[in-house]
C-alpha cells in the first residue's frame, strides 16, 4: 500500500502541473489576464515545465509561453533573456509535431515584435531547425515554420538575407504548391516579406520560379490567399523594369482585372497596388495595361470603395497618364477624370486628396485637349480652394499648386478660367491672365463673352507692377479691345466723367 501512496503523490503532482499549465494557457488567450500573469511571475514558473517529463505538459507549457510572448514585447524579451530559445531549438528537432507547432509558434511570437528580438532568434541557430520543419510531412508544422519565417524576414533586409541563406526560399515555393489553402497563403506572405526589401532578394525569390506558381493562384476563390499572392507579386514587381516584365510575362493580365472586382476590400487594394507597381516603370508596360482594359477596371474599382483602399488606384492613373499624352488621352476616354474629381471632393484625408491632385495634374499637363478635359469637370475651383485653404497639409498645398500651374499653362477653355480671375492669388492669377492673353487675340466670340461676363472689368481692377509679366499680359488683353471700352471699364471712370461734366462750359448763344 505504501508504494501506492507514494505513487499517488506523484500522480497528484502531475495532475497539478497539468492543470496549472492548461489554465495558464487558457488564461493567456485573454489580453486582460496577461498583466496579472506577468506580475505573478509566470515566466519563471513555466520555464522548468518546458523540460517536464510528460509530453503534454511540455507542449502546453510551450503553447502558453507562445501566447504570452505574442501579446507584448516585454514578455518576448523575457523569453529571450531567460535562455529558453536554445532549449526550444534543441528539442524542435526531436519532438513530435505538436511540440514542433508550439515551438514554431513561440519563435514567431518572439520574432514579430522588433528586429533585435528577431536577430536574437537568428543568433541562436533557429533558422536551420525551422528549415527542417519546413520539410516536415505535417502541413500544420510547415505552416507554423513558414509563419515564423515570414515574421522574421519582415523587419529588415539583413534578416531577410539570413532567411534566404538558410535555404528557406525553395522550400517555401514547394509549400505554395501544396493543396492546403492556409499553408499556401502563409508561404506566399513569407515570400512577399522576403522580396520586399531589396532587388537582390526579389531576384532570389524570382530565380526559384516563384512567379509562375503565384500567378496560377490568382484565380483561387479564397480571399485571404488572393491578398497574399497579390501582395507578393507587387513586392516583386516594384523593384525594377525586368522584374515587372517577368511578372507580366506570367500572363497575369487580364486575370488580375477580375480581382479588382472582388468583394474583399484588401484584395482590391493589393490588386491595384500590383497594377500600379507595373505601370510606373515604363510607358510600354503602361501601354500593355491600357490595352488590356486595365484603366477601366481600376476606375471601377476606385468607384466601388472608399478611403485608403482607393489610393493605389488613384496613383496608378497618375503614373499611366504621366508617361505620354496618348496614355493620358486613354485615361480620359475611360472616364477617369470625373472619378478623380469625385475622389477629390469626397475624401476627407489629405494624402488621398494630394494623390488625386497629382494625378489630375499629370493628366492635364500635356496638351490643350487634355487640359480641357480636366477643366470641364469644374476641378479648377476645387484645386484653388485646396491650395488656399489653411487646413490643407503642406504636401497637399505644394501638389495642388503644381497641378494648377501645369493645367493652366495648357488650358484654353475660357469659361472655366473665368471664376479663377476673382479668387486667385497673384502667382496663380499671372498664369490665368497669361492664358487669356494668348487666346483672346484670335477669337472674337471669346472676346465678346469676356466683356459681357465682366472679365474685362476684373482685369482692369487688377493692380500690377509696371514692367512685370502680369502687366504685359494685361496690356496685350487691353490691346484686343477698342480704347473706349477699356476706358469704360477702368476703375474711377465715372469720377473722371463727372469731373468732365463739372468742367464743361455749355455753349451759350
Amino acid at each position, binding site marked *: 500500500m505504501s508504494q501506492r501512496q507514494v505513487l499517488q503523490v506523484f*500522480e497528484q503532482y502531475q495532475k497539478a502541473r*497539468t492543470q496549472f499549465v*492548461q489554465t495558464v494557457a487558457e488564461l493567456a488567450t485573454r489580453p486582460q489576464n496577461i498583466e496579472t500573469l506577468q506580475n505573478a511571475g509566470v515566466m519563471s514558473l513555466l520555464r522548468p515545465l518546458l*523540460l517536464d*517529463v510528460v509530453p503534454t505538459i511540455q507542449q502546453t507549457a510551450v503553447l502558453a509561453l507562445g501566447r504570452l510572448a505574442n501579446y507584448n514585447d516585454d514578455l518576448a524579451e523575457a523569453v529571450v533573456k531567460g*535562455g529558453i530559445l*536554445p*532549449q526550444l*531549438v*534543441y528539442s524542435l528537432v*526531436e519532438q513530435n509535431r505538436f511540440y514542433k507547432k508550439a515551438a514554431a509558434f513561440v519563435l514567431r511570437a518572439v520574432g514579430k515584435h522588433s528586429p533585435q528580438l528577431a536577430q536574437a532568434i*537568428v*543568433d*541562436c*541557430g533557429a533558422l*536551420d531547425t525551422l*528549415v527542417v520543419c519546413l*520539410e516536415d*510531412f505535417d502541413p500544420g508544422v510547415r505552416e507554423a515554420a513558414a509563419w515564423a519565417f515570414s515574421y522574421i524576414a519582415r523587419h529588415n533586409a539583413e534578416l531577410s538575407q539570413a532567411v534566404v*541563406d*538558410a*535555404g528557406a526560399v*525553395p*522550400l517555401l515555393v*514547394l509549400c505554395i*504548391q501544396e493543396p492546403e489553402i492556409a499553408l499556401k497563403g502563409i508561404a506566399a506572405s513569407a515570400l512577399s516579406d522576403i522580396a520586399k526589401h531589396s532587388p537582390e532578394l526579389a531576384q532570389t525569390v524570382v530565380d526559384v520560379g516563384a512567379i509562375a506558381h503565384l500567378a496560377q493562384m490568382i*484565380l483561387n*476563390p479564397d480571399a485571404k490567399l488572393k491578398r497574399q499572392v497579390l501582395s507578393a507579386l507587387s513586392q516583386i514587381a516594384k523593384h525594377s523594369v525586368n522584374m515587372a516584365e517577368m511578372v507580366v510575362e506570367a*500572363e497575369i493580365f*487580364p*486575370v488580375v*482585372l*477580375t480581382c479588382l472586382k472582388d468583394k474583399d476590400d484588401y484584395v482590391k487594394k493589393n490588386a491595384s497596388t500590383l497594377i500600379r507597381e507595373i505601370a510606373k516603370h515604363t510607358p510600354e508596360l503602361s501601354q500593355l495595361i*491600357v*490595352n*488590356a*482594359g*486595365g*484603366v*477601366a*477596371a481600376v476606375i*471601377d474599382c476606385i468607384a466601388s470603395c472608399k478611403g485608403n483602399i482607393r489610393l493605389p488606384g488613384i496613383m496608378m492613373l497618375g503614373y499611366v497618364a504621366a508617361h505620354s499624352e*496618348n496614355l493620358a*488621352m*486613354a485615361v480620359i*476616354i*475611360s472616364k477617369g477624370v470625373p472619378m478623380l474629381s469625385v475622389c477629390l471632393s469626397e475624401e476627407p484625408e489629405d494624402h488621398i486628396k494630394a494623390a488625386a491632385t497629382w494625378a489630375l495634374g499629370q493628366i492635364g499637363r500635356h496638351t490643350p485637349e487634355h487640359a480641357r478635359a480636366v477643366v470641364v469637370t469644374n476641378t479648377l475651383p476645387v484645386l484653388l480652394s485646396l491650395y488656399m485653404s489653411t487646413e490643407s497639409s503642406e504636401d497637399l498645398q505644394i501638389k495642388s499648386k503644381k497641378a494648377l500651374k501645369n493645367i493652366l499653362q495648357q488650358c484654353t477653355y475660357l469659361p472655366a478660367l473665368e471664376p479663377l480671375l476673382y479668387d486667385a492669388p497673384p502667382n496663380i492669377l499671372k498664369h490665368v491672365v497669361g492664358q487669356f492673353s494668348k487666346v483672346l487675340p484670335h477669337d472674337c466670340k471669346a472676346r465678346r463673352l469676356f466683356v459681357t461676363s465682366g472679365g474685362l472689368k476684373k482685369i482692369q481692377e487688377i493692380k500690377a507692377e509696371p514692367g512685370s509679366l502680369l502687366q504685359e499680359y494685361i496690356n496685350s488683353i487691353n490691346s484686343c479691345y477698342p480704347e473706349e471700352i477699356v476706358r469704360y471699364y477702368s476703375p474711377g471712370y465715372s469720377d473722371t466723367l463727372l469731373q468732365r461734366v463739372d468742367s464743361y462750359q455749355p455753349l451759350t448763344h
Partner: protein
Amino acid sequence: MATLARLQARSTSMGQQYYYRNSVVDVFRKKENDAAVKIQSWFRGCQVRAYIRHLHTVATTIQKWWRGYLGRQRYQLIVKIQRRWRGYKIRKYCFNYYYLKEYLKAVSETNDAVRDFRIMNSCTLFRCREALEEFAEMKDREEKKADLEREEKKRDYQARKTHYLLSTKQIPGIYNSPFRKDPDPWELRLQKAKPLTHRRPKVKQTHSVSLSDWLACTSARSFPRSEILPPIDRKPCQGPFRPVAEVLEQRYRPLEPTLRVADPLDGLKEARREVQRQEWARNVNDNMFLPFSSYHKNKKYIPTLHLSSKYGSDSYGRQHFRDENPKRWICDKDFQTVLPSFDLFSKYGKLYSKAGQIV
C-alpha cells in the same frame, strides 16, 4: 708732360687690353645675335600665320554665302520634294492622327468589355475567356447559394420563435384553417421546427480520460455509492438474478490490459528521458551547449533526393499508403471477413461462463 709720358708707357698695354676685352666679348656677341634673330623670326612667323588664318575665314564665309545663294537659286525643286516627304513621314509614321483615333476607340471598346465581362469578344482576351467565364459563373453560383442559405436560416429562426402558433388537436392554428384543403406550408415548417430554449451556461469540457484515470477509478475505494445506503436485511429479488456483489465485481472489474496495450509506445523516448533526467540531476554546468550558428552560415543547404526531384514530393506515403488499382478490381465490394477475430490468449480463463474452460 708727365701725364703724356704715363699715357705713352701705358699705350701698349692699353692696346693689348683693348684687344683682349673685345676678343672676350666676341664669343658672346655671336650667341646673342643668333638669339635675337631667332626670336624676331619666330614672332614674324606668328604674325603672318594669324593674318593668313584671318584671310582664310573671310574667304570661307564669302564662299559659304555664295554657294548658299547658288543652291537656293538652283535647287528649289529638291527642297519642295523634301518638304513634301517630311510632312508625309511625320503624318504617317511619327504621329498618325487617325491611327491614334482608332487606338483610342479600341481602348474604349476593351474597357466596355472589361466592365461587363460576359460579352468579351476581343481576340486578345480569348485565351482567358473560358477561365474568366467559369469564374464569373462560379461567383454567381456562390452568391446565390449564400443568399438562399441566409434566407433559409432566417425562416427557420422565425419558425422556431413562433412555434406557439402551431395547431393543436383542439384548436387549429392560424396557418391551418379548416376551410383550406391542405395546411399552409408555414404550418409544416412550424411542425418541423424545434422551439427555442433559454441559453444554458456552457459546461466546461473535462479532460479526456487516460489510462491511469481508469485505473484509479476502478480501485476498490472508488465504487459509486448512492447517498442512501440500502437496508441491511434486503431480501434478494425474486428471479434469476445473480448475487449483487458478484455483479458489481464483474462490472467494476479492474482493467487488466493485454501485453500489447500495457507496453509503452515510446520506449525509446522513455530511455532518452531517463538519460536526460539523470543528466539533470547530475550535471555540474547548466548551460546548454549552443550550436554554432555561424558555423552553418556558409553551408549550402543540400536538399534531400526526395525534394530535389523535378516532380516534388510523391503522394504515396503522404496522402495514400496503399497501392490501389481500381481498374483491377473484379467486383465493387471489399473483402468480407467470414470469421470474426478473437483474442485467443488474452481472455484465457476469464470468460463469463465456466463452460468451455479447460481447467
